[in-house]
Structures are given as structure tokens and as C-alpha cells.
């Protein structure tokens, strides 16, 4: 099996099966929906207060953070079927995949590695697959 990501001088060639791309779109879409669910675990994990000594964060900071979370997820959804993505889009993929992982950790209440090991085979497999894709993409991008 060939490497799923191949670096060119100014882009990254993506050679992922269509079903994997479709799966990633679904994960990013679900994570995006969970992020805006105020009070939900993913919302608290990704957009919870950064200053624990204050009653609430600066509204401008909150807006910046919301954009910082939603932007990469939107880029992944928009470019998931592309055969070649720019370096910046590849970086957004890494951010988005990490947000998908963080959303899963929040959804399942994962706090320790034992918690991860206690997941169902399917959920554990999903997390390790996302980690593997991220790792391969980082290797390609940083090569």
C-alpha cells in the first residue's frame, strides 16, 4: 500500500480511499455540530474558559477561539475529496483531526489512557485510525 500523503514542493498529494475521506467528513461535521452545542462536553472542552480566575473570558477572545476551532473543520470538510491540498490546507487538516480527537475524548469522558483502553473496539479503532492519519500527514508535511 502506498503512503496516503506525499509531499511536493508546495503541496501535499492525498491518496486516501473515498470511504476514508467520507468518514473524515462525517467526523468533522459531527465535531462541528458538537462544538456549537453550548454546555455540551465538546463545547466545554474546546471553548471552555481559558482564564480560570475570571468569571468569563474576553468576548473577542471567545470569538477568536470559536473561529480557530470552526475554521479547520470547515477546511477539512471542503477539501476532503481533493487529490492535492496546499500546505496551509494540510496544516488545517492536522488541526481538524486533532479537534475530532478532542471531541471524541470529551464525548466519551476520556481522562486517562486506561479510559481510552476501555473503549469499545470500534471506538478505540476510530481513535487510533485518526491518530495514524495525523501522524502520516505530519510526517509528510514536515519532510
Amino acid at each position, binding site marked *: 500500500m502506498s503512503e496516503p500523503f506525499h509531499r511536493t514542493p508546495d503541496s501535499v498529494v492525498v491518496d486516501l480511499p473515498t470511504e476514508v475521506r467520507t468518514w473524515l467528513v462525517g467526523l468533522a461535521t459531527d465535531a462541528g455540530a458538537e462544538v456549537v452545542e453550548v454546555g455540551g462536553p465538546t463545547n466545554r*472542552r*474546546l*471553548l471552555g*474558559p*481559558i*482564564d*480560570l*480566575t475570571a468569571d468569563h473570558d*474576553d468576548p473577542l*477572545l471567545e470569538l*477568536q*477561539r470559536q473561529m*480557530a*476551532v470552526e475554521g*479547520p473543520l470547515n477546511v477539512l470538510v471542503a477539501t476532503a475529496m481533493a487529490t492535492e491540498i496546499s500546505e496551509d490546507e494540510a496544516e488545517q487538516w*492536522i*488541526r481538524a483531526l*486533532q*479537534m475530532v*480527537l*478532542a471531541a*471524541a*475524548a470529551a464525548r466519551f469522558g*476520556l*481522562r*486517562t*489512557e486506561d*479510559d*481510552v483502553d476501555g473503549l469499545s473496539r470500534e471506538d478505540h479503532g476510530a*481513535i487510533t485510525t485518526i*491518530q495514524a492519519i*495525523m*501522524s502520516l500527514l*505530519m510526517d509528510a508535511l*514536515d519532510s
Partner: protein
Amino acid sequence: MAEQDTDVFGSTSTTQALDVPWDVILWNDPVTLISLVVRVIRKVFGYSKEKAEMLTMTVHHEGKAVVWSGDKETAAAYCVALHGYALGATIQPGT
């Protein structure tokens, strides 16, 4: 030694209080790749690979690490940058 001022309402403040550094705390997460944390720390703070790896292992083994200290505004900006990679980070006055 801090200078002490009293405002018109009689409350006391010190220049030292204003100068207290704020820490950026990076928290451990069981699903985050160590390689990603090293990469993000290097990218956000411009640290060497060795320093980024040391901080990452502190987070991994101790649950958290102070990854930067300084003025509050910059600390908040760094925290937002870390959140851009979905890393758990908060700011708090340094000790």
C-alpha cells in the same frame, strides 16, 4: 519591593500586582499524540526541539506544564494559538 498606591475609593493596589507574570498551562489529554504536542509547542513558541520535548514529557507524566510565562495579553494569545490545535490550555497568575 512593590510601590503601593491607594485609589480614590480607598482600596490599595500595587505595581507588583500588575507585574505578576501569567502562566500558560498546557494540560494532558489521553488521545493527543506526543508528536503533535512537540510540533505545536515548537510552532507556537519557537522553542527548540529539546525544550519542546521536555515540556511535552512533563505534560505527559505530570498532567500539565507551564509552557510560557509573561504578560497576560500575550499569555491569552498563546493560549488561543494552542486551542487552534485543540490542545487543552489555560492561563493563570504565576506563583
